[in-house]
């Protein structure tokens, strides 16, 4: 469904490689990428989503020639670490905008808005602006925005970071249901949060790609 082969990435030509000859195949299901800060988890996620262009290597997505705009519009749900909602649009309008860009019909859009806001416990917040909501509520709304177009690929960067157990449980449940609803969906989640381990079909340890000398010296 989603795979990458021989990926190389660095932020500038002087900097060391963040990802070097990285290959992996993401089968349908939930994949967790775990590792220390700076190990390249978020970078990989943005490369998979087509938001960063790798210097070398290839991303393959079933049904698409590349991970460009067409894929991003229709079949990619992405949750960034910060600023995921348009600040001047209500939650409902945020969801509608993402769904309409994906080409989802009006009826289906309305249906999905109600469904995902309901699943994430946000029915009463749909007319609210992001700034009038708590961090947890905003994060749930962000996930609803990513799910609204029912994408084949879901990429989430620290979706539960800083959230309480209740909010985390809601998100876990919704993600599990979303992946189960359609057996061909892939979710890749970058996280430090061990509370998500239970829902993972596969955990990718990124620490093995990171030289640890610096960390060990700091501890000594």
């Amino acid at each position, binding site marked *: 469904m989603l795979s990458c082969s021989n990926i190389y990435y660095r932020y500038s030509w002087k900097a060391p490689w963040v990802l070097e000859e990285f290959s992996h195949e993401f089968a349908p299901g939930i994949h967790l990428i775990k590792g220390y800060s700076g190990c390249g988890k*978020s*970078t990989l996620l*943005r*490369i998979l*989503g087509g*938001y*960063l*262009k790798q210097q070398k290597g290839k991303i393959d997505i079933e049904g698409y020639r590349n991970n460009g*705009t067409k894929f*991003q*519009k*229709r079949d990619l749900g*992405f949750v*960034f*670490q*910060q*600023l*995921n909602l*348009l*600040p*001047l*649009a209500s939650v409902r*309008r945020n969801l*509608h*905008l*993402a769904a*309409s*860009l*994906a*080409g989802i019909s*009006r009826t289906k859009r309305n249906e999905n808005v109600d469904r995902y806001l309901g699943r994430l416990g946000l029915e009463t917040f749909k007319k609210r602006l992001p700034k009038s909501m708590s961090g947890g509520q905003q994060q749930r709304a962000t996930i609803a925005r990513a799910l609204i177009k029912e994408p084949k690929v879901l990429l989430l960067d620290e979706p539960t970071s800083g959230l309480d157990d209740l909010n985390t449980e809601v998100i876990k449940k919704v993600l599990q249901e979303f992946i189960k609803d359609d057996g061909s969906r892939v979710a890749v989640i970058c996280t430090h949060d061990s509370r998500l381990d239970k829902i993972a079909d596969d955990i990718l340890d990124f620490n093995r790609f990171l030289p640890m000398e610096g960390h060990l010296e700091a501890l000594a």
Partner: protein
Amino acid sequence: MISSILTASYLWKDTWKRWLEQPGSILARSVVTIIMVSLSVLLLVGFRMQIERLRTEVDKFGLDNLLIMETVTPMDIANGVPADRFRSIHKWGDLFTGKRMIASATLSNGRNTSIVAYSDNDIRGLLPYLKHGHEVFLLTNSDQEGLVIDCDVQDISFSGITLNPKENISQLIQNDTLFIPLSYIPEIEKRGYAMIYYLERNKNAPDIPTLTGAIQQVIKADGNGKVEIKSAAEIKKKLDMLEKKQSSMRIWLAAILGGAIALIYGVLSILEFRQSMYVSALLKSFGVSRIMLGIRSVIENMIIVNCVTFAVIYLLSKYHDVIFSSLKIQSSADINSLYWGSETSWTITAANVGVLISSVPVFWALRKQVGSILE
């Protein structure tokens, strides 16, 4: 379609919020536009007025006409300077001659008029007027033809009729002019006069510049320089030069106006873009195209530049008379055609091109990858 409407409506909301929060940014752009457009429009309109004035003069004078006015002083008369030395040009066309006297006549209604005295030699050009049977006649545009008039010239009374000037000499007769045989007022001639020769050139005669050259040769040879030669060819020359200058001025003004707008708007747009960079990146991550996000900047600046430009042009046209009379520039040109014609379309186009150029850095900045902006 719906996605474009939703995106456009969000972008408009974002722009509007920014305008309300930072009115200084609109104000800066407006002030630059007001100054540059005002200067540009005033200069171009001023030029156009000069051109229109000369064009009217050429039309009025006629391209085949030549006016020679020779001032003859009492001393010249005493020295026997030949006053009729240019009469021979009659062979090149229809010649109207007469002596404009220094004295004036008073009509019975109290109005003063200038006097043109004519001798037997001048009768040929006056035949259309003399055929009415009156040797004394008042050429006037204000009274109807055929009215009997009484007038006094230096305490001598005469009677005559009113006639309207024919088209060919209408530009010579700006105000009421009394025509009277020279023999009736011989004493007045001695005070000095201006000898008028007004030639309507035949088609097979030498052209006006050649005739002018020949006359200037005669003046040079005689050594008497109190002669004024006026022809449309001279005015036309001036007009052509002015039109040439106008073309180059248009290009320079357009370049300066467009350049200033591109610079100021470009700098402000890129600063504003940096403020809304995250929202743009987020919209891009949803799949909104770079073109659409860039066009937001173009439309925003076009709204400002066009609203301000049209308002400035409207106000300048409304206060046209006040502005140009204080600058002592007169023109009979139609105000609407001055302000809503080629001059302003040139300015409006330059301003809009400036806006398009100012958006280039924004489009360039939008090339930045979403993943390097959003975390």
